[in-house]
């Protein structure tokens, strides 16, 4: 949130012309903490709500706050199609690798063999790579950072906010209470250490997307800017805001 405020303030964006949309979960409540127009919606559907709002009122800037469960699990279809449709909005996913609000159940980004209240024998499933999904599905801008990378994260948020089309920033974040505690990282600083050890710069690592996905499956966190392109956004394609 701090990085976002910094990015938002440095860009001098008007709060009155910005609407924040969230789904359900720890991160999705952020819109309610910002003194602006906020739509706190149902679980997983924030991008769909935001799509309607943006097309009905194109002059609004739309920022969606979501989490790994909200975006990647229950809202996975809306996420993929949101990237594909490329409606102008910035989606910030705070990925804490766990369902924190309900007390620490495994999520679609919980790394393989990690503990949660629903994976007492270790997580047998493998995690989703949300950023790579966004790239493959057609988002205009995709970046992933951990909460350690404060400056890079702020810079990416600024890039995302300035760019037209569907922009996606994934923030790998710590939940010491419900994730760390069960995985020998009860102290928040231990989680930041874990981020440091597991992070691999995307631009310095292998180039093929499949390799990056493999790294994610191994429990590594690829960080950096994943894509920065200028596909025409949906509003431009259908001519919204041009007539009437």
């Amino acid at each position, binding site marked *: 949130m701090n990085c976002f405020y910094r990015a938002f303030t440095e860009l001098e964006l008007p709060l*009155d012309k910005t609407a924040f949309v969230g789904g359900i979960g720890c991160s999705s409540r952020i819109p309610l903490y910002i003194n602006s127009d906020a739509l*706190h919606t*149902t679980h997983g559907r924030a991008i769909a709500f935001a799509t309607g709002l943006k097309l009905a009122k194109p002059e609004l800037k739309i920022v969606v706050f979501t989490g790994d469960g909200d975006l990647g699990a229950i809202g996975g279809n809306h996420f993929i199609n949101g990237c594909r449709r490329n409606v102008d909005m910035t989606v910030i996913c705070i990925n804490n690798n766990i369902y924190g609000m309900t007390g620490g159940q495994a999520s679609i980004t919980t790394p393989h063999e990690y503990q949660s209240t629903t994976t007492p024998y270790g997580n047998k499933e493998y995690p989703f790579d949300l950023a790579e999904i966004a790239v493959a599905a057609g988002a205009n801008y995709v970046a992933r950072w951990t909460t350690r990378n404060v400056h890079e994260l702020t810079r990416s948020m600024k890039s995302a906010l300035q760019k037209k089309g569907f922009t996606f920033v994934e923030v790998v974040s710590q939940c010491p209470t419900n994730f760390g505690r069960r995985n020998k990282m009860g102290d928040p600083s231990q989680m930041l250490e874990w981020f440091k050890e597991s992070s691999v710069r995307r631009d310095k690592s292998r180039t093929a997307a499949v390799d990056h996905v493999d790294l994610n499956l191994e429990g590594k966190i690829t960080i950096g800017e994943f894509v920065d392109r200028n596909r025409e956004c949906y509003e431009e394609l*259908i001519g919204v805001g041009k007539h*009437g």
Partner: protein
Amino acid sequence: MKIAPGEYFLQGNEACVEGALASGVKFFAGYPITPSTEIAEGLSRKLKGADGVFLQMEDEIACISAVIGASWGGVKSMTATSGPGFSLMQEAIGYAAMSETPIVVVNVMRGGPSTGQPTRASQGDVMQTKYGSHGDYQVIAFAPASVQEMFDLTVECFNYSEKYRVPGFLLSDAEIGHMRGLLKIPDNIKIIDRKEKGMKRPDEAYDVPDELVRPFPVFGKGHKTMITGMTHTDTSKIEPEDVKVHQELVKRLSEKVLRNRKDINKWELMCPGSKTMVVSYGSASLGAKEVAAKDDRVGLLRLKSLWPFPEEPVAEVARNCNQILVSEMNLGMLYWEIKRVALENGCKKVELLSKIGGDPPTPSEFRHKLREMGAI
């Protein structure tokens, strides 16, 4: 483009499209599903010329979510679907009720449960409309029985949804949606727009006190609106643990609809003095209309609105007749509501002519049942 006043020969679903455009719809999100698809197709052609947006979404959940989002952008918005899609929409229908978002959902009903009969008519979603989402809430629902009413009641759906800030439903079916017939577009159509926060507009539509239906704070106008599906105060502060806040909110959501039942409910009455009255709606009423037109021993109360349940006309009919025949294209849904009101008002005999499978009950099937009841 809105249709010009005059006479047209149209399909029911096409008449619904024209009704929506006449109401000023500016946003439609849909997903293909039989037998409602013509509504999406029609609006995909016509919304562009009406300065609106048509969107085909990835599923029905996304459709209704986008429709709610668009409504908060300040425009009239709608979707159209049928049974399976309607089931998917239930989660967001509860959200629209809780967040008091005016939206219109057209359900061209087909045979269920599950995939059922995609091309055949049914009235199986009547209770789902009112009880499909979790928690206590009220909705407004209309049931057209002709091409003309597909137009007229689409307009009413928008009007009452806007006026009371509730989800409005048009419960059509495959028969009415695909029927072709005459549509008369009058010169003047009464249109109600939501009362926007910060706008003074004296209008007869706004005879509802603000305490019951609060002025609508459109996004992007500096209201700093916070909209949530959680229990919230009047200032949109979330208070999920506060017993009193929850009680006041949920009761108001119901009261704003129930207290205005007389304003919302619409019906048609034929031969009101008859000793035997048929109570029906939509396709199921067509056969009874033909019987009542020729035989004054049988009357018909045709409900044009189903929710809030039209207690008053049913009670009035029950007080003045000896027996009631309810006709529905399901195994008995609204029957129980009608029976409850009839018994409360002294009519002891309430029977059901139920028909599923897709064909509406014919006049001869009505006569057969009425003979059994000793009515004719």
